[in-house]
């Protein structure tokens, strides 16, 4: 029986705690008697027969929806859209959940005589998926059946011929999505809900949309009003997407939503990497040796090889639920299942929040976690993994651990390089940079060209990464990065510290000399339910 997450009060006998540190790890001692560590729950047992569960979900939909088989008719136009490379994290072992779901859908479609089928990676303004990434997501059989004829492809948010303006919300938000998807007789969406931000109307309203639509909610004002964007009911980001969903519904776009959840078994419960998920006081001598050997091994290899080693890791996390049918009904159940794995009850806030940042975010799969993404991962994702209120008080300090190298992938993140060199050298204020620079980047022809023909994130994307952290930036009094490259950290507008103890010292003029501390233990991720 997996143990739930809990809060450990640190005392003198608490051993050093594992922190992610990019492509590496640190063991850090937290001050006794005023620190607490939020530990995630152990991985929930996955579904024993995922294919069977998928078939059951398709046949027993939730909400106002007929079974999928009943909706598939010969001669119809069917489009299957699926979450892109940003999920799951890390990429999972084969078969990917999307492969299993899509194969089940295609089996039903074939049985019904549907032969006009397109499969679209719903990537919005993310980068295009490569052949090997698509193969990993949908499986070789599906890839080879559909890609050669051009029926399996990446959504292109800059293709004016393949976008359709559906309407506007009551707030004046333009809803524009992929034309093929909009004009299909049935749109099946295949989702992986890694965190509670994902899924629901966000799948289609964001994943299949364009800049014209996205800018209504991917902006500073919306993100500052999303407290947090992991809690749909307190998230303006989600309110906007749900309004757009209403427009999609009322315009007659017929969506059959299939959502899945996963457990948090990132490094395995046995095997050489399992030590990384274990609670430190439960490390055996063998675990300690394994960890030491891993550290030594990582120290010996080049940064490039370290990155390759980590990026090639395929996680054994597995499906814990699958539900299908009408979007809202499905998403309620999905969210409950996400919370079942992630939520940890926490009482009160502390002065300082610490976290170790891993090597991977949704936006650097098979790539480099550049400094902008470090900010997004820390102040965006990890900070927002709360319900209720943040575990750190307003005006408190965030201390993150990451090497933060001044390094960018020029193919994947060309506009990020310019954002970092030009925009952040002038200002780190999200409102100012939104006003002054966003349009220039969003409409830059070269970025547009690379997004459409290469494997680049859209020109505007680094801005969204910055906006993702804007609620945290408003909330916090200071951000310190431990072990980060000094000039990168300073360019981000944060303060560099060599050690965690130095960071505490540096925080003292904001939070005093005996601050209380919350550490968000990771791996794997969790969500703090703070009262």
């Amino acid at each position, binding site marked *: 029986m997996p143990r739930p997450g809990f809060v450990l009060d640190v005392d003198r006998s608490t051993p050093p705690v594992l922190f992610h540190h990019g492509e590496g790890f640190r063991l850090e001692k937290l001050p006794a008697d005023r620190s607490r560590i939020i530990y995630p729950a152990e991985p929930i047992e996955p579904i024993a027969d995922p294919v069977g569960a998928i078939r059951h979900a398709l046949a027993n939909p939730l909400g106002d929806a007929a079974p999928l088989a009943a909706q598939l008719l010969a001669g119809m136009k069917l489009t299957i859209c699926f979450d892109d490379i940003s999920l799951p994290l890390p990429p999972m072992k084969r078969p990917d959940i999307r492969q299993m779901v899509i194969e089940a859908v295609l089996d039903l479609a074939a049985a019904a005589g549907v032969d006009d089928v397109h499969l679209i990676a719903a990537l919005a303004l993310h980068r295009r998926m490569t052949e090997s990434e698509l193969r990993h997501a949908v499986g070789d059989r599906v890839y080879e059946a559909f890609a050669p004829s051009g029926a399996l492809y990446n959504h292109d948010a800059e293709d004016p011929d393949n976008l359709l303006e559906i309407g506007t919300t009551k707030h004046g938000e333009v809803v524009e999505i992929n034309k093929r998807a909009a004009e299909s007789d049935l749109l099946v969406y295949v989702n992986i809900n890694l965190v509670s931000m994902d899924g629901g109307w966000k799948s289609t309203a964001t994943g299949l949309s364009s800049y014209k639509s996205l800018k209504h909610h991917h902006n500073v004002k919306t993100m500052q009003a999303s407290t947090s964007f992991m809690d749909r009911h307190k998230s303006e980001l989600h309110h906007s997407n749900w309004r757009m969903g209403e427009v999609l519904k009322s315009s007659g776009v017929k969506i059959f939503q299939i959502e899945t959840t996963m457990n948090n078994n990132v490094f395995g419960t046995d095997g050489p990497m399992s030590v990384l998920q274990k609670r430190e006081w439960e490390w055996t001598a063998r675990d300690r040796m394994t960890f030491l050997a891993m550290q030594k091994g990582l120290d010996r290899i080049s940064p490039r090889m370290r990155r390759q080693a980590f990026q090639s890791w395929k996680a054994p996390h597995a499906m814990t639920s699958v539900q299908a049918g009408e979007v809202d009904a499905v998403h309620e159940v999905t969210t409950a299942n996400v919370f079942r794995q992630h939520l940890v009850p926490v009482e009160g806030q502390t002065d300082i929040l610490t976290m170790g940042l891993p090597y991977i975010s949704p936006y650097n799969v098979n790539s480099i976690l550049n400094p902008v993404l470090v900010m997004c991962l820390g102040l965006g994702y990890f900070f927002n993994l709360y319900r209720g209120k943040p575990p750190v008080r307003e005006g408190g300090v965030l201390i993150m651990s990451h090497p933060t190298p001044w390094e960018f*992938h*020029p*193919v*994947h*993140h*060309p506009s990020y*390089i*310019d954002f970092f*060199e*030009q925009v952040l050298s002038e200002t780190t204020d999200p409102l100012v940079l939104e006003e002054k620079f966003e349009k*220039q980047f969003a409409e*830059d*022809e*070269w970025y547009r*060209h*690379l997004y459409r023909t*290469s494997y*680049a994130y859209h020109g505007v994307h680094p801005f969204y990464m910055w906006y993702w952290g804007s609620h945290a930036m408003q909330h916090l009094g200071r951000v310190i990065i431990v072990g980060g490259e000094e000039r990168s950290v300073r360019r981000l507008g944060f303060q560099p510290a060599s050690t965690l103890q130095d960071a505490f010292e540096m925080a003292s003029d904001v939070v005093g000399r005996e601050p209380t501390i919350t550490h968000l233990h990771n791996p794997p991720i969790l969500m703090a339910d703070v009262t």
Partner: protein
Amino acid sequence: MKALRFDRKPARYAAAIVAGKLAPGAGAGVGPLRLADVDPPELPGPDWLRIAPRLAGICGSDLGTIDGTSSRYFEPIVSFPFVPGHEVVADLLDPLDATDGSGPLAPDGTHRVVLEPVLGCAARSISPTCAACAAGDLGRCTNISFGHLSPGLQSGFCCETGGGWSTGMVAHRSQLHRVPDDMTDEAAVMVEPTACAVHAALAAGIAPGDTVVVLGAGTLGLLVLAAVRRYTQAGTVIVVAKHDAQRTLARSLGADVVVAPGEIRRAVRRSTGSMAIGDGDITRLTGGAACVLDCVGSAPSLDDSMAVTRPGGQITLVGMAGVTNLDLTGLWHRELRLVGAYAYGTETLVDGTSRRTFDLASELVMADDLARLVSATYPLSRYREAIAHAASAGGRGAVKVCFDLRTEKERTRL
């Protein structure tokens, strides 16, 4: 008198080359440059005057000579032994005109001059003068090694004139510009390098609103930036600066965008909205800046220059280049103009008027307070440190390093 003298000594020169490769400026310790007691230079002719340097700058061309990195191109237009130093503010020791009275003058700062070091037809007693000298373009003099003077493109490279790195030298009256009373010595010593910069800025072909790139933010790059801002109608000016202090100065002198060396292609692409060749990692731009002033003159800087100049644009080579390995395909394919800018003379401004470069430079020095670019001064006795400082100025937060001759004891014995 005391002087730093550069002798023709091949073995020492070879040693300087090796030392200069190990540490910039190290050629001063082992090369042919020595602090020596020398006889003051004799007056080569009737229109020559004696002057006593007060401040003398260390230029990049001097460093190239000392470290053996200069091209052999210069050998026939240099005469040994010579005393380096062509950026000079000095006291007149002989009257320049009637206002100085008659008889020898005291080196007390009352009668100061700036040296225009190019040795053209007038200095060489050549009459009639060549067409370039007649037009006031001394830098293009075609009699550079001829006439009644030993070869030497400038004072500071001629065995007969002496140079600024000493307590005494000689100059032809046509080479001397009076220093106004309200101009400090530090401002005056900046006039000659500023004149090079003004000439380059006006030779760069900058049209109103053009995007201009200045590659390099050492002394020359910063002065070129100031000159571009004052004497052209450039639009966006982008400066490439390696060091933090240089970046700060570049912003204060009017740069719109200041970037590190590896960032220039992206910066020009952003500013001009150009497309680029390369899958995110820019090989070159398909558009680019109208004008690039390369104040470095190395193969990588020229490569960058060609990558960021728009088709039909101009690259002005301001920095002293040597033997350089370069792929010129881009120059041909994009119909780029590669133009050298050397020294100064007479300039035609945007309003059509003609002015002497030195006059324009003096105005710019005062207007932009360029005296602040003199970062350090040294006595002759500490020449090794001075040259090492000048050779690594950027990294040490310095711009112009000078010799200060005002405190040399023997000035009072002149």
